[in-house]
């Protein structure tokens, strides 16, 4: 990427190490402040508060009102993620702070993981791999698993990612149902106005919506019960979409058919009781973790920052 001139003095705060490529490209252009390397983070912020003009956030590090207030020169929060639930959007708008994210470039990867998790759970890919590696196959055949083709896939949130999941599931002859803020009659999928109804009518429920006040803990006991003892829950949204203790007890008590999880309430902590379950597949928030997509996300973050500091229109503004 061509580097525009004269931005080296602009202070950009990078709270955690997200990607070596992103760090490298930011360092080439800006005065990059690497918060995770500071022995005393609060002091570090205080020391640089008067000069930080941009924050690069991600799924776990955003900008709340307190941080925004402590940085009087803050102009933009460019998130290395599409979900920006960790950014106080209302406050940013109030304060005139711009916010960007990384939509589209990661849509395919995340949808791929949704299907990958579904197949891994239903066909017990991880468990049967362990079965082979431990030598158990020499003692007898693995058990029967469950067919995916033809199962009804319910999608919560039919945005870019939800639609991409639907397109893939259709190739497996899966009838598609969904629940979303608004019905999309142009798509020939079955709409349900509530998540509980959606859960009761599908075999696999994929959480693909944004995390907001409305959708926090939207997957609760009622929904888990409606999905049923054979139903499979796939979470590629945010950990806080699911009432995690409720899901845990449903899985431990055999009231759920299984879960494929890429996100959790307190990453990177994952409830250890899940580790012993064979109908669960656990990924470390890897939905967009391919070399190609991470580079594309980084390029988009850089592109948004450059556009802002060159007074050009932002590439992917949220606020």
């Amino acid at each position, binding site marked *: 990427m061509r580097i525009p001139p004269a931005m080296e003095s602009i202070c950009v705060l990078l709270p955690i190490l997200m990607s070596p490529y992103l760090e490298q490209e930011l360092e080439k252009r800006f005065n990059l402040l690497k918060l995770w390397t500071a022995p005393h983070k609060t002091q570090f912020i205080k020391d640089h508060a008067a000069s930080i003009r941009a924050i690069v956030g991600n799924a776990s590090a955003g900008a709340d009102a307190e941080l925004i207030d402590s940085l009087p020169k803050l102009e933009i929060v460019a998130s290395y993620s599409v979900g920006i639930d960790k950014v106080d959007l209302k406050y940013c708008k109030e304060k005139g702070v711009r916010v960007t994210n990384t939509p589209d470039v990661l849509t395919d990867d995340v949808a791929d*993981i949704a299907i990958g998790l579904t197949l891994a759970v239903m*066909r017990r890919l991880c468990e049967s791999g362990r079965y082979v590696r431990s030598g158990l196959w020499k003692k007898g055949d693995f058990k029967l698993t469950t067919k995916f083709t033809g199962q009804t896939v319910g999608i919560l949130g039919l945005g870019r990612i939800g639609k991409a999941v639907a397109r*893939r599931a259709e190739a497996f002859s899966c009838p598609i149902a969904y629940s979303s803020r608004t019905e999309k009659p142009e798509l020939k999928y079955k709409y349900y106005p509530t998540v509980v109804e959606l859960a009761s009518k599908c075999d696999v429920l994929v959480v693909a919506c944004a995390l907001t006040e409305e959708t926090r803990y939207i997957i609760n006991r009622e929904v888990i019960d409606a999905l049923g003892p054979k139903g499979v829950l796939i979470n590629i949204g945010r950990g806080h979409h699911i009432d995690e203790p409720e899901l845990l007890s449903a899985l431990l008590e055999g009231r759920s058919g299984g879960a494929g999880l890429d996100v959790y309430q307190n990453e990177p902590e994952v409830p250890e009781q899940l580790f012993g379950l064979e109908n669960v597949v656990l990924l470390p928030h890897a939905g967009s973790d*391919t070399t190609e997509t991470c580079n594309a996300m980084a390029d988009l973050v850089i592109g948004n920052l450059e556009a802002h500091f060159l007074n050009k229109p932002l590439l992917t503004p949220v606020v």
Partner: protein
Amino acid sequence: MAPLPNLPEVLIINPPPAFICFESHFTHKFNILRAWESPLPLDQFLTTHAHSVQALLCRAETPVNADLLRLLSALKIVVSASTGADQVDKAECRRRGIAVTNAGNAYSEDVADLAVGLFLDVNRKISAADSYVRRGLWSSRGDYSLGSKIGGKRVGVVGLGSIGYEVAKRFEAFGCKISYNSRSKRQSLSYPFYSNVSELAADNDALIICCGLTDETRHMINKEVLSALGKDGVVVNIGRGAIIDEKALVRCLVNGEIRGAGLDVFENEPHIPKEIVAMDNVVLSPHKAVYTVESVKEGGEVMIANLEAFFSNKPLVTPVIYS
């Protein structure tokens, strides 16, 4: 349960999963001769109890060869639980005028689903990352290593029969570009056709092995093909272990000459080459592509339909060889 009188006899040497899971579906219609339950050695059982049996129901692992057929002089049909009926000496059956049926398309969707699952797993490191999380390493060591994007990958399907077709259809939905090698070009399909599997490998990022095992396809995926595929290439095998030269595959994986593999079948099941047991970029599956409740049930229905057709002199449902 005592068999009902006058039900036609069907011999089973080792019961296929469809029989184990849905036994009554079979025993309501046929008088089953249960060789596996007898204390007698097989040849004695057959000469004592099966000399007039006309139908043999056999699972994929039970070889039906000249030695066995010699002991079944009245045999007229072999009903195989498998898609390929590779375990049946078809030339010998043809010589003896014995019909052979297979499972038809009963398993195609499930096998295709597993091919996609294995491919997604290898490229996105699903099993490896799941293991990483379960060992508590996400909190102690940080994020897992990056995988490889699926969209845009060029995928070469080896064998475009009913399974290969279902595989191609699914991969397309992930944005993969499909081409194939098969015994003959399928005129109704627009995917680019390669008559040579090395050339297919050279032009693709992955090979999905979907063909049956024959004299032609034995060790067809050899060192030359794997070199053509290249160090970024991935192999998925849901056909038969012997289609790949397993020693060559292991060497390529150990030396980093291909990027990874997803394997449901092996040359010497249930033995796995020890070199690949601990490799994170190899996804291992215990020959279970067809083993879902739904497929086993459907496979059983196809076997029963073929037996019923045979005993009522009607056309067989899924013949491999007519008699």
